[in-house]
């Protein structure tokens, strides 16, 4: 039988702040000779200037094109020829850069991240090359792909009003082609200050040694002011909004429902209730939407519910989004699908959870969180994100206990937030075969 108390993983965390303002989190763990490093800058899609949609992501590419001491291609070659892997990703509220390495490359990888925090090498030639690469990325992931970018590109455009929250984060081609080296220099100067970043190191190292290496390589990066983060919040919607998008490659319609969610950071417990609600509604064959719409009347091919534009509920500050999305075969089926979704949500708001339902989803959710902590890079990026967005890396380890405390009443309140008047509905009209 399931055990009543959850086992909780334990990790040791150390904090320091360099004189230039860089916040550092160390999570040593000597069980395998690998280290993860992540640098998160507090700038994302929401901070792009008007006329420069997609710039945060384009800039992420430019950060790999050489730096103070490195020519183009050298960053990749040093990481990989040391036996490591690298990547970066652009989010609505932050941008991350990360490597997983054998532990004998610890100083090398600290140097590599510090060198580009010091000065990325942005040239006309590299900019033109990466604009071309990013356009191919958008073609392969969006323009040439059925349901590409749906709904993360189309839904915010209808759900939100401000440029910051509603624009296409991948960027329009005209905006991307208009980007200049001067734009990049200005963006770097403003947002890539050490005081606007969190560095996290996890894995096989001695904390004192790691601290000395971090001070040696990141210490010389000059202090610059941390930019003031604007208030991106938007008031709750009072009336349902509708929009549609056409997809020439899609063979079947799809729909996305988005609900504005305010301030997950300021009221984490309410937010955890929403996360549990999303699982109750749509996660797995026991969930309410799956039973009603997939297994029951078979009106949808698949359906999901999640928080955060990219499916990570802890990825965004104020605002974030509760999204429900589905593919369905019958082009006239949408009214029935929306009615069924609303009935299921209302049932939770009115009657709460069923016996065993809440325990089931929180046990599974805790277990899924643990699974993400096992890879050294998963720990690195999660600790860094909680330090940046929530101000405390430790919170990550407290989540399973906090989930245990969420009550049936809080789930009902979360469900009541998802009223039709609070949402935007975007319908994808298929133009493909069949």
């Amino acid at each position, binding site marked *: 039988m399931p055990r009543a108390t959850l086992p909780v993983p334990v990790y040791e965390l150390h904090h320091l702040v360099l004189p230039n303002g860089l916040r550092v989190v160390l999570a040593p763990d000597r069980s395998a000779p690998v280290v993860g490093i992540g640098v998160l800058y507090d700038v994302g899609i929401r901070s792009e200037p008007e006329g420069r949609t997609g710039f945060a992501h384009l800039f992420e590419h430019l950060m790999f094109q050489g730096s103070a001491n490195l020519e183009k291609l050298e960053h990749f070659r040093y990481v990989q020829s040391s036996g490591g892997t690298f990547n970066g990703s652009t989010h609505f509220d932050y941008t991350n850069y990360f490597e997983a390495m054998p532990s004998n490359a*610890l100083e090398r990888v600290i140097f590599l991240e510090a060198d580009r925090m010091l000065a990325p090498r942005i040239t006309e030639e590299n900019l033109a090359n990466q604009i071309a690469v990013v356009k191919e990325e958008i073609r392969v992931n969006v323009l040439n792909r059925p349901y590409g970018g749906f709904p993360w590109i189309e839904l915010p455009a209808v759900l939100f009003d401000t440029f910051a929250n509603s624009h296409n984060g991948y960027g329009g081609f005209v905006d991307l082609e208009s980007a200049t080296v001067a734009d990049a220099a200005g963006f770097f100067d403003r947002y890539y200050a050490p005081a606007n970043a969190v560095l996290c190191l996890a894995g096989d190292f001695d904390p004192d040694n790691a601290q000395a290496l971090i001070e040696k390589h990141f210490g010389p990066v000059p202090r610059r002011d941390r930019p003031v983060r604007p208030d991106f919040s938007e008031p709750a919607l009072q009336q349902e909004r509708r929009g549609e998008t056409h997809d020439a490659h899609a063979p079947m319609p799809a729909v996305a429902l988005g609900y504005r969610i305010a301030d997950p950071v300021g009221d984490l417990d309410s937010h955890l209730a929403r996360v549990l609600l999303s699982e109750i509604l749509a996660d797995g*064959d026991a969930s309410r939407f799956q039973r009603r719409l997939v297994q029951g009347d078979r009106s949808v091919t698949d359906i999901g519910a999640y928080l955060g534009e990219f499916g990570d509920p802890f990825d965004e500050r104020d605002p974030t989004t509760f999204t429900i999305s589905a593919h369905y075969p019958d082009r006239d089926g949408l009214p029935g699908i929306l009615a069924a979704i609303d009935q299921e949500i209302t049932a939770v708001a009115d009657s709460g959870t069923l016996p065993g339902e809440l325990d*089931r989803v929180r046990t599974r959710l805790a277990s899924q969180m643990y699974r993400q902590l096992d890879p050294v890079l998963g720990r690195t990026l999660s600790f860094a994100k909680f330090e940046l967005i929530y101000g405390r890396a430790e919170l990550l380890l407290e989540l399973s206990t906090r989930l245990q405390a969420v009550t049936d009443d809080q789930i009902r309140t979360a469900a009541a937030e998802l009223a039709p008047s609070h949402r935007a509905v975007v319908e994808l009209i298929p133009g493909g075969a069949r």
Partner: protein
Amino acid sequence: MSAVPALTAPVRPRKLSVSETVLDSGLRVIAVRRPGVPLVEIRLRVPMISGRTAQAAQAVLLGETLLAGTKRLDRAALAGAIASLGADLSVGVDADRLSIGGSVLAPNLPALLSLISEILTDASHAKSEVDGERSRMLERLSIARSQAGVVAREALGRRMYGTHPYALDLPDDSDIAAATPAQIRSLHSRLIRPAGAILVLVGDVTPSRGFTAAAKALAGWQGASQPSRALPLPAIQTAPLLLVDRPGSVQSSLRMGSSALTRLDAGYPALQLANMIFGGYFSSRWNENIREDKGYTYGPHSHIDHGVLGSSLLLDADVATDVTAPALLETLYELGRISSLPVTEAELDAVRQYAIGTLALSTATQAGLASTLSGLIGVGVGPEWLAEHPRRLAKVTVDEVSAAAATYFAPSRFVSVVVGDSATVRTPLERIIDVERSSS
């Protein structure tokens, strides 16, 4: 002098201690204690190889309905029971095997194994569930086949392996439509048997506890599978580039394939490293050329795919429509170069470290180690391969890599497919290669 810090002395990973037992039923159980997070990763792999292409559709529907209820538990009750253990299970099917994979909170391992046993011996494959999954599968296949990459992969599969089951990436619609609940239950009864199957457990559990739990929970799963005969993999016949029209496509999906060595071949480490130098990692020649220099693509990749019957070398790149021919030209140039001229020591050193380092990274996690072990053992490679392979990689010479590249990367060995806007790309492609237009 370079400002880049030198590497320090490498730390040897802890010796991997892999325990193995065979249950009375013939099920091989492999266990590794890997504490960390309080979970156990589970991989059960049941061979399903067949010479009949129609089995693919039945096997896929068997997989889709395997978790859809037993005599005791209906679909939702089964899913609820799994989730309540802090577990996740999913079923995957390909031409070689059916696999059940997932994870569970460590204290609940025995309970999850009991549920898996119930699924293996008692799955209903009820008519209503098969009917539902059949129509859902047809909808999902239509979504899958609206993707250029899927169209290209299927076209390349047919080009490489003709009518052999390995040519199929996805089942045929007509085979799905024709599959009946009786056929699926019969297939389950014939093939989902413990003799010949492999169970891998990795995580916060000792092997002896894992073995005891597996023996107890799976005692009721008995019998040997009765597979139909597998057909040998046919030799790949060279042919003109196949152009599949996708009107209005803003990119062309280029896919190329040829045969490769298996991991059991003495020449494999050299071929693995040759592949990395060509296109198997970001710092490869192909990527540095057509992405980082020319900006034709978001990223080309080459990789070696391992099946029970053989291995394949596969190249893929999605390139802007208007540079389709130039991208092919650069690809043929890089293939010609690596198969005609020696690689350098510096290139070899880089990929050697990358291969050794990423193997250590991928097996440093519970899930990565479980999947790697299951994949190796499933194609007949023992777990000792993991410890031995870095030593083999360390010994590979420039001459061996160059020789492997000369044989396996020769452009004349590959069959090729382009899915794209034929009206725009056909004439430019015909200037550099023989092109055959797809009739479909």
